[in-house]
């Protein structure tokens, strides 16, 4: 028995059938010598290709402490003590937005997270740096990161590139030269697959102008509903389009603005022309047919048709149509991203939405808030909280708060803390508090500006807390403010379950404060 393969073959068959020198034991002894020699004498692989190195990042990595904290946030087995996945995600996002580079070893977990949570992607692109893009290119399920921002020149022909690269390329071209982008899209429009047409058409969003209306009008006759929808949304935002003129003509016959009042005459029918322009003929359940058509027409009419918000809204509307008209105008303002109109309408819709509790109204209100400039959004949310915190939480103020810029501006922060104080003192149920407190934890600024915060708390936190805060000059740390609120409350009601909610808030705030200290190192 001399070679390894002979030994293996003999062992497989058995020495009973293929006798070996020394029998079974002899075979095993030669196998030990030969097998061990093979195991010990293993050679390295040769001529293996080296990986492409990642382009260097100029900025230094985040501090070791900040890196360790992010690693903890990403560890799926870390329980952040009752804090849900949502809070964890917010904290990861906040870390990434701090503008520091994430260490390479954390990027795989971050890319996995970004795959599931789109909103992390812009911050991840920055915090990942060159290393992140280099890594994302190596796995199909991470490549979305390149689709996010890949505006480099295409290496392959325009019509053969993967869709993410094509969208990125078209976006870049549109930004430089809208007409060239449109021509590029038109050059292959008729050959595009149904799935790609809507996504590609969406890039006209950048540099949108009346010159795009020919292509958009063509898309209105597309067999795919998504494509028609994209085209409609874009057309409605063009101030001087043929589409806008058609809708304005329809709308003016519905709303006749007189000197002292508005006359409302809803459409009597929904003809094919209206349907092509996006009016859905069938009213949803519970809505009158003509009222629905009116809302649909108004929702697609350029805001400019009505002059300034005040021109129309100061005039009295017939009671039976007032709600429908406001909703139609509201949808239009939201779709066209018109902040001026959105602001004017939010104030008129909020009482209605909270009173009627219709989910549609809520969604519309959210859409209007989104159309508002950020500063105004925060001011309005603060007003809502100040007026009646109990009703605000019942009416789902949380969704509106989510749309406010993060961290919350000073006025909103004060209003939110005051609302929490009122709710805690007023004995609100912990689950009702939970929504507001969870949002406040990740969105409150870490320092409260000046005396506004102190004053807001002093009113509710009892004499001790108020006095302590009044003594502190300038900014107050939010953690301290909340902690004092808690202490003052604990003196009166030491066994109250709402104390736990306040503790939760302090814990998250302290976590964030430490995180920012580490990120600043």
């Amino acid at each position, binding site marked *: 028995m001399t070679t390894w393969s002979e030994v293996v073959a003999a062992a497989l068959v058995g020495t009973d059938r293929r006798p070996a020198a020394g029998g079974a034991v002899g075979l095993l002894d030669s196998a030990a010598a030969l097998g061990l020699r093979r*195991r010990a004498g293993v050679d390295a*692989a040769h001529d293996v290709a080296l990986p492409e190195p990642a382009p260097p990042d100029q900025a230094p990595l985040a501090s070791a402490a900040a890196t360790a904290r992010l690693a903890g946030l990403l560890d799926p087995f870390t329980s*952040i003590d009752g804090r849900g996945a949502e809070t964890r995600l917010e904290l990861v996002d906040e870390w990434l937005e701090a503008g520091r580079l994430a260490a390479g070893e954390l990027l795989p977990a971050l890319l996995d997270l970004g795959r599931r949570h789109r909103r992390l992607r812009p911050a991840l692109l920055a915090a990942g740096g060159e290393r992140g893009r280099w890594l994302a290119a190596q796995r199909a399920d991470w490549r979305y990161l390149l689709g996010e921002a890949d505006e480099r020149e295409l290496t392959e022909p325009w019509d053969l590139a993967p869709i993410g690269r094509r969208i990125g390329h078209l976006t870049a071209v549109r930004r430089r030269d809208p007409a060239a982008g449109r021509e590029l899209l038109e050059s292959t429009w008729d050959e595009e697959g149904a799935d790609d047409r809507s996504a590609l058409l969406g890039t006209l969003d950048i540099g949108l102008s009346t010159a795009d209306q020919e292509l958009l009008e063509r898309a209105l006759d597309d067999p795919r509903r998504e494509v028609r929808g994209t085209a409609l949304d874009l057309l409605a935002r063009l101030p001087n389009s043929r589409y806008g003129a058609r809708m304005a003509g329809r709308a003016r016959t519905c709303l006749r603005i007189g000197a002292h009042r508005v006359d409302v005459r809803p459409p009597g029918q929904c003809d094919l022309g209206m349907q092509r322009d996006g009016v859905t003929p069938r009213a949803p359940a519970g809505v009158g047919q003509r009222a629905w058509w009116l809302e649909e027409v108004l929702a697609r009419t350029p805001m400019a048709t009505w002059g300034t918000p005040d021109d129309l809204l100061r005039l009295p509307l017939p009671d039976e149509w007032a709600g429908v008209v406001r909703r139609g105008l509201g949808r239009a303002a939201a779709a066209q991203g018109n902040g001026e109109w959105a602001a004017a309408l939010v104030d008129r819709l909020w009482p209605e939405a909270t009173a009627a509790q219709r989910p549609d109204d809520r969604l519309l209100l959210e859409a209007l808030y989104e159309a508002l400039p950020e500063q105004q959004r925060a001011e309005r949310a603060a007003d809502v909280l100040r007026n009646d915190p109990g009703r605000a939480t019942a009416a789902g103020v949380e969704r509106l708060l989510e749309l406010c810029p993060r961290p919350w501006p000073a006025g909103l922060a004060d209003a939110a803390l005051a609302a929490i104080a009122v709710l805690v003192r007023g004995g609100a149920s912990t689950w009702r508090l939970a929504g507001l407190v969870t949002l406040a934890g990740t969105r409150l600024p870490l320092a409260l500006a000046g005396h506004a915060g102190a004053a807001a708390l002093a009113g509710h936190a009892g004499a001790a807390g108020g006095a302590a805060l009044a003594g502190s000059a300038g900014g107050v740390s939010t953690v301290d403010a909340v902690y004092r609120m808690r202490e003052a409350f604990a003196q009166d009601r030491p066994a109250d379950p709402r104390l736990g909610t306040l503790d939760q808030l302090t814990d998250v705030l302290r976590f964030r404060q430490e995180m920012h200290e580490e990120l600043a190192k």
Partner: protein
Amino acid sequence: MSHIDVVQAAEPWSAERVLALAPDVPAQRAAQLLIGDSRWSDSGAESDLVWGRSRGSASAPYQCIATLGEHPAYHCSCPSRKVPCKHVLALLLRWAAGKVAAAEPPAWVHDWSLRQAARTARREAVAGKPREVNPKTVARRADRVAAGMSELDRWLADQVASGIAGLTTVGYEPFDTLAARLVDAQARGAAGLVRRLAGAAVSGDPERLVTELALLRLLAAGYARLDELPPPLAATVASRVGIPVSRDEVLATPPVPDAWAVLGIRDEIDDQLSSRRVWLRGCGTGRMALVLSFAGPGQSLPIDFTVGTVVEADLCYYPGATPLRALVAGRAGTVCAGPEAPEPPADPIAGALDSWAAALAGDPWLDRWPVLLAAVHPTTTHLVEADGTALPVRGEHWPLIAAAGGRACRVMGEYGPAGIRPISAFVDGRVVEL
């Protein structure tokens, strides 16, 4: 006379030192969230005894006590099985931050510390007693092991006589039976090798199966003539069969003093037994060492090593022809990390493979061997040197790939027949634990 100067707290620790007590990273994180003043009441400290009550999710606050003396012990009334739990860690973090004032221990703390002292005293009494070794017991044990090993030898010969092709399809059951019999015969090490054999059989790779069978035969043959073997090899064979070596025997070997670089740490946390493996390399001697520690339920793993640091220590190796496992006989302290710390020698791939071959020559039953590679580029399949020489990696290691960014770095890992399993990497002056 005042009592105030009698009650004194010990010098508090740093937060890092407290966190190192944690059984795992999640516990560290969780503890950092519980240090708020609002959660704690009735805390106090007296010398190395620290206590406090923490409000958690239960209605009654948890009672937390820690004593940090020569025999550290922790107590918490929470339901967590981790020791120390997050509440105790948070308490100690507060203590480290100077937020726990010196005080007289209240009754519930006092009672516990009395019980704890009694427990420690009992344990010491047991440990202090020199273990009576009954020569009859030793002889009986040797007989049982010998019987088990010769049964194993016969079983191996039977398999090869009738052909091993059938072994690949029988599943784990016959191997489990054989392993159980070896455990009964007090040959736990051999039983472990039989389980490894089962893995080779199920994998369907005949070459691996033949090798593992032959290695078991080598062990049985070696044990049969243990007395004739040179002492180091005899020690290796005995330990592979599963004859235990006492701590005293290990500490009686000549210690190896060196500056030991901590290359990697791996924990396995289990309900029954937690274990920690710490890989070291002597900066002067270039020797590799593996320090194992275990903790049963309710105990925490010792926390004496941090990856990336260098420790002046005397190590005593377990006797054997390829010494690897070692005990810390004494240590002078941590020579910190950083540019002024000594660097452990690292090898090219060829050198690492030579060390693997040399290790196998002394201990043919090795299935993994620690290596420190000087400059390799990690890819999805290999660790590649600049000239294209490469070792295959076991599994996918994206964090390593991402940390290295396609550039060369130092990688520590365990090499075995299936390739290398990376454990830590040294990139741009940072340690990355994988």
